[in-house]
Structure formats: C-alpha cells, structure tokens
C-alpha cells in the first residue's frame, strides 16, 4: 500500500472534487453541496457549516481514498482509467445509497415523509439527488470520476 501517497493525494483528490463541485454550483448546474450537507450535521449556520463540512468531507474523502489505494495495491495497477472506473462505482454508491439514506440520520434534512412537526429545513436529495437540480447526477459523476482519475494517476500500485 502506498501509505504516503494515500495521506497526501487523498487530500489533493478530495480538494479537487470539492473545487469542481463548487464551480458547478456557481455555474448554476447543481445545488448539491457536500460540505453544507455534512457541516449541517453539527451547525445550522450555512457559512460555518461549509467550513466544518469541508473538513468532514476531506476526512470522508480520505476514507474513500483508502479503498482506492487498497484496490490499486490488490490489482498491482494504478492507472487513470482504473481510477475512473472506481470513481464511477463510487458515485453510483453515493447517489443511490449514501445520499438517499442521509435524511434518516441527518437532523436538518427533511425526509420525503416529513410532516408538519418537522423543523428540518434542508431539502432531501431524493433519487439520484435530482431534487438538487436535473444535472446533479451528471455533475456528481464528473467530479467523482475526476477524483478517481487523480488518485489513479498519483498513487503507486504498491
């Protein structure tokens, strides 16, 4: 395992993913905002949440990078296209499993079943996070594939 590479390039890849996602938001392509979604687990203020969430997202990205590093080590190969393939699997899991489950544990995301007693104000992501804009699945796919490519290019296979 390329432990040094994991420690450094995991951060690089997650930062690149976050930057690309922010750019997509600013361009009006999506309203998905991972730092905000994560940060509002601990604070209601969106600006503070984004800062806290950015570091939480870095931590999560580091966790996923561990999986990429282990996969490259098992395959004895680390290429951009294997990284891209892993990124595709990664985004698939994020959109179909992780995000739809988030309302179940997040105190500030309303669920599709929310009723009048709910005080959660963050809208739920919905299927493929489509509630955050029609282009959200495409944007999420692109940034996660980019994340995989960065790791595929920078990590060593052993």
């Amino acid at each position, binding site marked *: 395992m390329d432990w040094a590479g994991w420690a450094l390039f995991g951060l690089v890849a997650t930062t690149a993913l976050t930057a690309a996602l922010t750019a997509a938001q600013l361009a*009006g392509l999506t309203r998905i905002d991972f730092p905000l979604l994560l940060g509002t687990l601990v604070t209601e203020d969106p600006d503070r949440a984004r800062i806290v969430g950015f570091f939480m997202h870095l931590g999560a990205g580091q966790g996923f990078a561990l999986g990429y590093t282990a996969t490259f080590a098992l395959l004895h190969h680390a290429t951009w296209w294997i990284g891209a393939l892993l990124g595709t699997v990664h985004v698939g899991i994020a959109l179909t499993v992780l995000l739809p489950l988030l309302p179940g544990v997040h105190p500030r995301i309303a669920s*599709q*079943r*929310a*009723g009048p007693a709910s*005080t959660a104000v963050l809208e739920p992501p*919905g299927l493929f996070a*489509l509630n955050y804009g029609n282009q959200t699945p495409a944007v999420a796919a692109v940034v996660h594939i980019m994340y995989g490519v960065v790791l595929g290019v920078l990590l060593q296979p052993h």
Partner: protein
Amino acid sequence: MTGRSDTTSPRSPTPISDYGLLGDTRTAALVAGDGAIDWLCVPRFDGEPLFGRLVGGPDAGTYRVGPARPATIVKRHYRRHSATLETTWAVGSSRLTLTEAMIAEVSGRLLPTTLIVRRLSAEEAAVDAVVDFDPRVGVRHRRPRVHHRHQALVCQWGSLAVSLSSSPTLAIEPGRPTLITVRPGQPITLVLAVAHREPLIHVEPAAAWKLLNEDEDRWQAWSAEIDESLPFREHVIRSLLTMRLLTYSPSRAPVAAPTTSLPEDPGGVRNWDYRYVWPRDASIGVSAFLSVGKPDEARGFLAWLLHASRLQRPRLPAVLTLHGRHVPRERELPGWPGYLDSVPVRIGNAAAGQHQLDGYGWVIDAAWTFVQAGQRLYSETWRAVRGFADVVARCWQEPDAGIWEVREPAQHIHSKLMGWLALDRALRIADTHPLPGRQRRRWQETRDAIAAEVRVSGFDPTAASYVRGYGSRDLDAALLVLPLLGMDSADSTRVRGTIDAIRDRLSAGGPLLYRYPPGRDGLPGTEGAFLPCSFWLVQALASTGRRSEAVELFRTMLDLASPLGLYPEEMDPATGAHLGNYPQTLTHAALVQAALAIRDAPL
C-alpha cells in the same frame, strides 16, 4: 351487509365551493359534498392524479363514500381547529356521517406516506351507503392491476400501488360501486394507503382511526399557538391551517393551489396549473406566519426560498417546483374534458420563464420582515438578498410580465413600485448587516430614480391615481400595496386617490374587485373578480386610517368563503360562483394579512 350496484348515477358538476380540502402537507385531496374524492395527486401535490374526475371527467377516477341515494347535507364542517372533515347527511329519518382526514405526521413510524382514513357512521337507523372506488393513473386514465392481499384490495401501476382496506371487510372492486348498510353503533372505516417506489404498508383500520385522532390533536395544538389577540381569529386559523396544509413539508414549499385547470372563465381557455410554488406567495407567507406567532413556518418558507433560488441566482425564477427545480414545460392533456368543459386542461406552467420584477420586492420584503422580528440573516442569506437587489438596480427599467403574468411584457407601475420596495428594504437590512459603501450608494440612487420616474410616468393627475403602466389610463388593483411600501406617505393624496380610484373603477360589485379592467390581458374570454385584491383593499384601508371601512369590507368578504371557509382565486361577481384553482394560498395569505392590518390599525 354489502351488495353490488351496476349503475352509476351521472353526477352534475359539483360547484367548486362545495369541495372540502383534505391534506397531509405532502399532497391534498378535494372532497365533494356527496363524499367523492374527485382530486388527489400522488405522491406529491404535483404528481399524477389518482382521482382526477374534477377536470378529467368520469374516466379519470374518483373515490366516493356516501349515501346510496340522493341525500341532504345537514352539517359539514372541519372539526375545531383541525384538518378533519365531517359531513352529515339526512337520509329519511336517519343520519349518515362521514369523518375523514389524511394523516400528516407519519415520520418516524412505519406508516405509508399517503394515508386517507374515512369512517361512515349512522344514527337513528340503518342507512344504505355506497363505496365507489375507481382509481386511475396517467393521461389515458389507466386502470390498475388488481389483487387482494391481507384482506385489502391492492391496485398497482408499475412503481405505484394503493391499497384499500376496511373494517368490517367489504367486497370492493375498482370501478364497481359497492352498496353497504351502515348500522348505528357499527361504523365502517376505510383506509387508503399509497406507496410510490416503496413497499405498501398496510394499516389496520382501527389503528388508522387512532392516527386520525392523534393528528387532529396535533393540529389543535398547532392552532392553539396562534396569537390569541387576532381579530376574526377563527377565520384566520382556518386560513393558516389551509396554508400549512398546502405547504410541502419535505421542502417547506407552499404550492399556489393543489389543482390544475379549474377555470377562471368557465368554458374558456384560462385554465392553468397551480401545483407549483411562486416565491411571491412564499414571501407573503413569511410575514403572515411571523406575525401570528409561527416563526418556524416563516423560517421554513425563507429557507426554501434560498435553496430553491440557488440554481438561477441572482435571477429569481417566477415559479419553481416543490423542490426548486424548473417547472415542466406547459402542455395540454388531450381528451381531458376539463371542469365545465373548460379546455385545455394544462400541466406545467409557461410563467416559469417570465421576468417578474415584483417578485424581488416580495422576497426582500420577507427577509426584512424576518430581520424586523429580531432574526439575523445568515451571511449566505444576506449575499442572496444583495444579489437580488443588484438585479433590481440593473434591470428595473426593462419591461416585465408583472404580478399578473401577462404574456406580453410591459412597463408595469406595480413592478416598478416593488422594485423600489426591494431596494428600500435591502437598504434597511443593510443598517444591521455589512454592505460596501459603493453598493449602498448605487441602491439609494436607483431607489430614488424609481420613485422619481413612477411619480411622473406612473401617475394620472386627472384620475388622482397611479395607473397600470406607462402611458396607460387603466388601473391595477395590485397598486393597493402602495400604503404599505412607504414610498408615499400613507395619508398622501396620491395614496388615498389611488385606493379610491381602484375601489371605484375596478369594482365588480359589493366587496369584489377586478385585478385590472376585464379582458385587457391579451387572452380570449374574460374572468371573475380577483379575491386577494379585496383583502389587499382591506389592508390598504386599515393602513390609511379607515379601520371601520376595512372591518366592514372584511366581514363582507368572510361571507364569500365556501361553507368550509375556503377561498379560490376568483369569483363570478354575478353568480357568486367560485372560479379558478382551489383553495388558493395567495387568497388565504391575503386574508391573514388583512386581519393583521385590522389588528394593527389604530381604533
């Protein structure tokens, strides 16, 4: 106890005002006086109609539970401060009562997202009743695949399934009215559960009835929190409950109305889809809920506004879906006969692409109301508000579609006034929030420029009134917001002249007002009186020291509600018939604001 009826008696069109609203804050049903649910979209307000008879004709589905023979309604009301509807018919010497509600609070429990509970009970003697369950889905009114499971009838269309269970068990088949006998002391409870992209969850009728009662307690507790000093409190509570029932809880977005294509002109083409969210309505809701002591609802409205507008910021879309997405392109449903033959029946809304300058004013005013109530805006919220104000400063001279969403853009004075309001309120917020000096100066200069131009080009000295547009002599009832803005003093001759001119020249008889001279909007046909305008007139009168006139007008308006206290968008001045989509959030919000203006007016 049960039998089958193979004849379905043809039903004449139910007047709009005969419909009651059932809601769970995710979707809503309209129930006619004969016990027929003729409108219910699933899984959300803007979903597909499961029962669409209201505008889709007999083939579009209905769910009727009521007397088997024509009967007279002796009492129909919502149980006090709740969303539970109770209808009692006289059948001979007996009474048959239908008690029904949708279950709003399903979160955290193994319950279906949409659950309708209906109970028939008889008094004095046994009564024959009928259950006509005929769910259909899609533009072509597809019939379901049917089977029975766990003593429940299950109807399926791909990822959508509904189950109907009852206690005692009834042999119900879709599309075939079932005759039943209801005996005193032996009520019949029916439970309709809907599952969309998830497994069906069956709820025992006894448990469902308990849920209905729990929900009723919750609504009563919710209503008890409303300011006790409000004038006309019972009417205001019904309006607030209606507004809350029409607010989609998962995103806190208020739909304009739960229906599409109820006509503004029966038999005409003015049939629109209102199952979307107008930021303007949401903004009016902010101040309405804040002022009656419901800050959570106000916060929810504002949060939705901010999230929803993010994709297109700093531009503020005129209309959005419940989740802040682009509204589907407007299209017509072929073969749908419409309410009273009013075609086309439309879904989607073409107003989505319009530029409506007034929207910025409503939204920034809502943010200001929030700040006035002692709340501080998050930096992100303030950034969004600054962006909106910048758009106004940049674009206020452009023609727009205005509040009435006319399809040919024009220079609307009301839009300019709301542009003035946007900048004025943004500047007031800036007193407690950071704003660069250059931006402040630009807003001040633009605000003053708008006022100067409107006073010259938007005022008709001969009529002593502001007018609808540059060079126009037409009036516009939306100008009744004038005394609330503060651009001209509330007791100035310009403000008073405008109020009097609108009251006189746009009068549709009694308390009713047209929003502008009928027919002057480029669309064929005419329309009714626009009910929110009458409540705005109440507000304008109360704000300009004419409280007793305001109270008198308000009382008259209360008499025009449906028997259940609900209002549509418009009313036929000649017949008093309700027109347009129903019930209408904007009308109810205007009612609440009018009551608040009366409360705040000096005696």
